[in-house]
């Protein structure tokens, strides 16, 4: 007899999904799958739209990381216009992209994951939440508010809107930076860095407590992928693709990321709207790789800012070059956030950052364009084909959560095997299954606000469709 445990929906991630845990005849976990039950459809929606509308349309895919889509989309449009944005425009795009990294990473670590990290996976959900964090460790909670607000405000000041700014446009940005905005942003950097460093110190002091759990928390051998600059250092905006194996050997190094079909395949499973990408050299489903903050740290030689490089050194001294556990996404995410805050400061201190030359203008000069950048969750690719009038004929998006899909399935299966000990659904098991998914901070193209509750609903379903057990909160 085969049973299934279904967790639907998953809480504290961006979007809508469910998890199915497959039990074998002996009642042991045989496999697990992460399904995305939300249909995005943006690739179809944009067909027929003019290319200059693409960045602002694509930004609406997500209420959490709109800037990431804005940037990747604008880069694809740059290619279609065959323009090179002025250097100041590139730096300003970098600032906004890094502000996105700050605010999204802060949401993931402070607001979504810190309750688990502070109270433990077995704690009562009535306490294991953001109000509980505010009571138990108010400084941590206040730092979360402050860091996220810092990133959000940069986006709002640069783009005029905090959620869906339209400031990044094909050819550059829509308006130059004012000195007043530069000073306002720079004034917030010290507090943001101090808050991130406090969180890092706290997390590092707590790591020993999680050593055993990390061994069964999505800990497996896989490849890692991220963008690096010419020196092999982390690069969130531009750069070339580097892929490293579980032993730290380079499988691909500084290749052009744009012809992604040469190194990545995309598989579609009937049970999910989320595509699974895989390394073509290893095939499907063996070509598992991971992207995101942990992958960026692993594949890069250095971060390129003083404090983040110091933290990267400590990270590697403690965990090695390529730690296998998904749990360490949390640690990596904080270092990634620290880098972003430091780099924002560096960029805004550039001599040309106030230059009025921020946009190149052109008409349609190519019928195809690909934009690639690092979103908070990992490498993001936008690929468009347009007709001679600049109307979109075809679009394909390869998103970070798709890169991580195979890894998420493996992670869920490992956690379930370690903690699901009966056909009964229990809260600590449920929370661990969710928590390992939260490490990847998956973004399922969220419709971020909808009326009504989103209760957690889990069903244990027998082979005849009978509900054997049910849990809701």
């Amino acid at each position, binding site marked *: 007899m085969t049973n299934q445990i279904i967790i639907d929906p998953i809480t504290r991630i961006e979007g809508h999904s469910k998890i199915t845990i497959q039990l074998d005849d002996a009642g042991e976990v045989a496999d697990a799958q992460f399904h995305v039950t939300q249909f995005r459809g943006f690739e179809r929606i944009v067909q027929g739209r003019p290319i200059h509308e693409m960045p602002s349309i694509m930004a609406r895919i997500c209420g959490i990381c709109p800037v990431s889509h804005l940037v990747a989309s604008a880069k694809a449009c740059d290619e279609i216009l065959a323009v090179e944005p002025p250097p100041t425009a590139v730096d300003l795009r970098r600032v906004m992209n890094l502000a996105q990294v700050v605010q999204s990473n802060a949401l993931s670590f402070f607001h979504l994951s810190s309750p688990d990290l502070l109270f433990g996976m077995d704690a009562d959900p009535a306490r294991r939440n953001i109000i509980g964090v505010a009571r138990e460790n108010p400084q941590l909670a*206040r730092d979360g*508010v402050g860091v996220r607000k810092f990133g959000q405000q940069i986006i709002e000041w640069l783009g005029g809107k905090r959620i869906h700014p339209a400031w990044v446009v094909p050819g550059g940005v829509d308006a130059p930076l004012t000195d007043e905005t530069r000073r306002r942003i720079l004034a917030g950097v010290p507090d943001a860095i101090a808050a991130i460093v406090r969180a890092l110190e706290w997390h590092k002091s707590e790591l020993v407590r999680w050593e055993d759990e990390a061994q069964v928390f999505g800990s497996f051998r896989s490849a890692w992928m991220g963008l690096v600059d010419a020196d092999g250092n982390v690069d969130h905006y531009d750069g070339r693709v580097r892929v490293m194996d579980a032993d730290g050997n380079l499988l691909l190094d500084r290749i052009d990321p744009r012809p992604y079909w040469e190194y990545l395949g995309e598989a579609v499973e009937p049970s999910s709207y989320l595509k699974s990408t895989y390394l073509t050299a290893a095939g499907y489903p063996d070509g598992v790789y991971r992207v995101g903050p942990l992958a960026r740290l692993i594949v890069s030689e250095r971060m390129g800012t003083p404090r983040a490089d110091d933290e990267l050194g400590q990270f590697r001294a403690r965990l090695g070059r390529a730690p296998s556990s998904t749990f360490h996404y949390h640690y990596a995410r904080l270092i990634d956030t620290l880098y972003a805050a430091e780099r924002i400061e560096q960029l805004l201190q550039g001599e040309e950052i106030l230059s009025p030359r921020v946009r190149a203008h052109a008409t349609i000069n190519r019928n195809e364009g690909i934009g690639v950048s690092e979103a908070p969750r990992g490498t993001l690719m936008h690929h468009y084909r347009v007709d001679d009038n600049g109307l979109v004929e075809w679009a394909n998006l390869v998103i970070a959560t798709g890169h991580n899909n195979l890894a998420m399935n493996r992670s869920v299966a490992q956690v379930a095997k370690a903690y699901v000990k009966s056909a009964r659904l229990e809260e600590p098991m449920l929370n661990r299954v969710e928590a390992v998914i939260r490490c990847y901070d998956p973004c399922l193209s969220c419709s971020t606000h909808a009326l009504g509750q989103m209760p957690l609903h889990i069903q244990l379903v027998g082979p005849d469709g009978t509900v054997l057990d049910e849990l809701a909160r």
Partner: protein
Amino acid sequence: VAGALVIGYGNELRGDDAAGYRLAERLADDPAVAKRGATVLARRQLTPELALDLSRARRVLLLDATTLLPAGELELRRVEMGGSAAAASSHHMTPEVLLGLAAELYGAAPETWVLSIGAANLELGDDLSVEVTTALDGACAKVIELLDA
């Protein structure tokens, strides 16, 4: 935020779910609101960092859509701290939990009200229903009235 804070929230791509968001956009351009010194924010959802804004306000007015009222109907209710925080997430932070967070973190729990607007259509799209569009006039007047109270 030294005076009143108005936050309208909802998804602009889900029909009437955007009622609060659209109302906030309208209020932000209304000279009568500016004259009263209120700060107006349009957001897709209530998120934890808004606790800081709440804590600095004298009075808070939240604007949201609801399916619990007939389409276009308005309802005003006072927010009391509390409610289950277990479901608090980036997806779903209730006014009660947000107010509680402001109190826990910043020691301030300003008088907070929710103005709910009955929704008719929550399908994909950026248009409001006729009922909600019509109701926004009354909702604007209600907000001004509250700002004067």
